[in-house]
């Protein structure tokens, strides 16, 4: 049996020896209470910010190159600069709708250290002149909602939130709000729709970049929970200190959830850029390798939407640019490890089924395409697949995400990596995300697909004049 050196009151979190920027309070059992938070430096970052001009606080965040931790990895300080001047009021929307398969770090940050998140929200509001903050927590996360509600009530009572914060002229309300079960609401414009009381369907960008036209049509900053949770430490210690961790391109730490077939799955706070996938998956401080008697087959490097990696990509650093060049993304910091017992087709189907279920239905290529993908994969798995199904899957994928889809290199067959991100015919990246498991597995494990295909095409491929059209009609019928 593997030993799980977990912190018992924070199931999943593993306390390793690395620097702690966002998880410093986790080892305390009462980390979510105002008493523990204040005793361990909570709101000192806010005080440091309030002693400075708002523009200086913004500069500090820009200088730190704090990258967004929600998936896209865009620098927060730059994103903050996109709001049109003078078009008041500005809003802050906190994205706590974490639902990407394999991902959970925001849930722990919200459950275990809500005061850190609240403090981060306040620092952002002060720096940018954001006048009301909406903290949107995923509906299924009841404990996170409870701890944040408790923390907000205490923070109001102590004068950290609300009118004339800490006796200054800075005033802002933080409103806890919550979703009700829809993956797509993690997309920032869909989240805004949901917050306005609508179905969570993404808006077209342009023109609906939230920084320009966001909540109620006003400039709005949408930031991820982990991104904002970095701000208190950053204000207490400064950008220079922040940049001593991680690499030049990706300073600081990131939380990674590693699940699947590893000896010690867990959520780890890891230095970005300098740590590699191999260290994280095999290191003694981290996951300690693949489970006994088995070997690595493949892994998802950045949440369900990321194209898959293999043995050859293990030495890449945990950093956006090299991972993107190698054909995938770090995304939401979720790594799902699969050993040689894993059926590639079955694993791909499970993720595709997720996207088919969660497609909001706004864009035709995604709404129809994900359903087709699921049905074709299911029939291959059920022994009802036909030889043309593989090309049909790739054809549907091409309709959602035209052109070569990002994939990892395959040295055995002299195939180069195709860099991330993909093109898309849809408003948001959900549709293209469904393509990732399909193209990753067909390229690498085509033989597994072929081995499952036992039926013949009803019209022999060799004699069919236009194969694609014939097959398409069959599927519709």
């Amino acid at each position, binding site marked *: 049996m593997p030993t799980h050196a977990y912190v018992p009151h924070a*199931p*999943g979190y593993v306390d390793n020896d690395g620097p702690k920027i966002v998880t410093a309070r986790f080892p305390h059992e009462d980390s979510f209470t105002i008493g523990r938070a204040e005793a361990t430096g909570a709101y000192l970052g806010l005080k440091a910010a309030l002693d400075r001009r*708002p523009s200086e606080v913004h500069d500090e965040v820009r200088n730190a190159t704090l990258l967004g931790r929600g998936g896209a990895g865009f620098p927060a300080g730059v994103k903050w600069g996109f709001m049109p001047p*003078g078009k*008041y*009021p500005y809003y802050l929307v906190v994205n706590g709708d*974490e*639902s990407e*398969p*394999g*991902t*959970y770090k925001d*849930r722990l940050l919200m459950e275990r250290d809500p005061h850190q998140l609240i403090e981060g929200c306040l620092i952002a509001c002060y720096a940018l*002149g954001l*006048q*009301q903050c909406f903290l949107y927590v*995923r*509906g*299924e*996360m*009841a404990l996170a909602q*409870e701890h*944040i*509600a408790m923390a907000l*009530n205490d923070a*109001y*009572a102590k004068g950290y939130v*609300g*009118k004339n914060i800490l006796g200054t*002229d800075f*005033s*802002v*309300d933080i409103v*806890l709000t*919550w*979703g*009700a*079960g*829809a*993956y797509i609401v993690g997309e920032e414009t869909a989240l805004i729709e949901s917050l*306005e*009381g*609508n179905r*969570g369907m993404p808006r077209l960008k342009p023109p609906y970049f939230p920084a320009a036209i966001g909540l*109620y*049509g006003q400039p709005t900053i949408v930031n991820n929970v982990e991104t904002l949770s970095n701000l208190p430490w950053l204000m207490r210690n400064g950008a220079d200190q922040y940049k001593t961790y991680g690499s030049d391109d990706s300073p600081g730490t990131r939380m990674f959830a590693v*699940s*699947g*077939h590893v000896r010690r*799955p*867990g*959520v780890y706070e890891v230095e970005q850029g300098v740590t590699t996938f191999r260290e994280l998956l095999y290191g003694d401080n981290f996951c300690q390798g693949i489970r006994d008697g088995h070997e690595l087959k493949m892994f*998802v490097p950045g949440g*369900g939407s990321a194209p898959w990696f293999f043995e050859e990509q293990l030495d890449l650093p945990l950093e956006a640019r090299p991972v993107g060049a190698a054909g995938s993304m770090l995304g939401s910091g*979720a790594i*799902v490890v699969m050993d040689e017992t894993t059926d590639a087709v*079955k*694993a791909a189907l499970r*993720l595709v089924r*997720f996207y088919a279920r969660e497609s909001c239905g706004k864009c035709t290529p995604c709404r129809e395409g994900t359903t087709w993908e699921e049905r074709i994969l299911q029939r291959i798995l059920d022994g009802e697949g036909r030889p043309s199904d593989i090309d049909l899957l790739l054809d549907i994928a091409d309709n959602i995400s035209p052109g070569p889809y990002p994939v990892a290199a395959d040295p055995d067959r002299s195939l180069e990596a195709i860099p991330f991100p993909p093109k898309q015919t849809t408003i948001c990246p959900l549709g293209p995300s469904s393509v990732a498991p399909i193209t990753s597995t067909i390229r690498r494990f085509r033989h597994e697909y072929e081995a499952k295909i036992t039926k013949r095409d009803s019209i022999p491929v060799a004699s069919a004049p236009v194969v694609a059209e014939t097959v398409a009609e069959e599927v519709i019928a």
Partner: protein
Amino acid sequence: MTYFDDSNLATAREIISRYPRPKSALIPLLHLAQEQDGWVTDDAMRQIAELTGTTPAEVKGTGSFYEMFKFHPVGTYVVNVCTNIACQLLGAEDLLAHAEATLGVKAGGTTADGMFTLEDVECIAACTEAPCLQVNYRYRLRVSDADFDALIDDLRHGRADDVPEHGTLALVRQHIPADTGAGIVAPEDAREAPVWLARNAKADDAGGES
């Protein structure tokens, strides 16, 4: 239309008062309705429409998009077994099959006694603790078949103290005190920069920095 009891109606009004637009309270109010009855009734949607200045059709239109809202009665305990990739790798499908056998219903079904609804759900963010499930949105981690049976037994006999009845999420609500709250900021009410940003301008005048 009267649906909410007095206490919940006061809560509903308090929730609405936090948003610049009442319609923004629509999802929280649907949760409140579900807390009152365990599911969302037609009367609930009618009153929510009145309270938020929308129509019942809009309330249903929004609500039906979200999986957590139930528009028909469900079990006292909704058991959500995750079968997404990380859980699947560690036996979630077997767990779900065991759950179906134990409860005697397929995923999506409710037991005849109205105690349990079983669901096959997407990732619930506890992937390192696979296979996992939620019962009324309270976690159970690394669940074996025996653990599942013990959980059902506990729930049947009222021994799972941390699990409220279906519909109740957080046991603590946010309250913004009238005297210390900053107040809502509606688009039409705040055309000027907030006062604290003036600190930038003052410093610019004094120091000439941009």
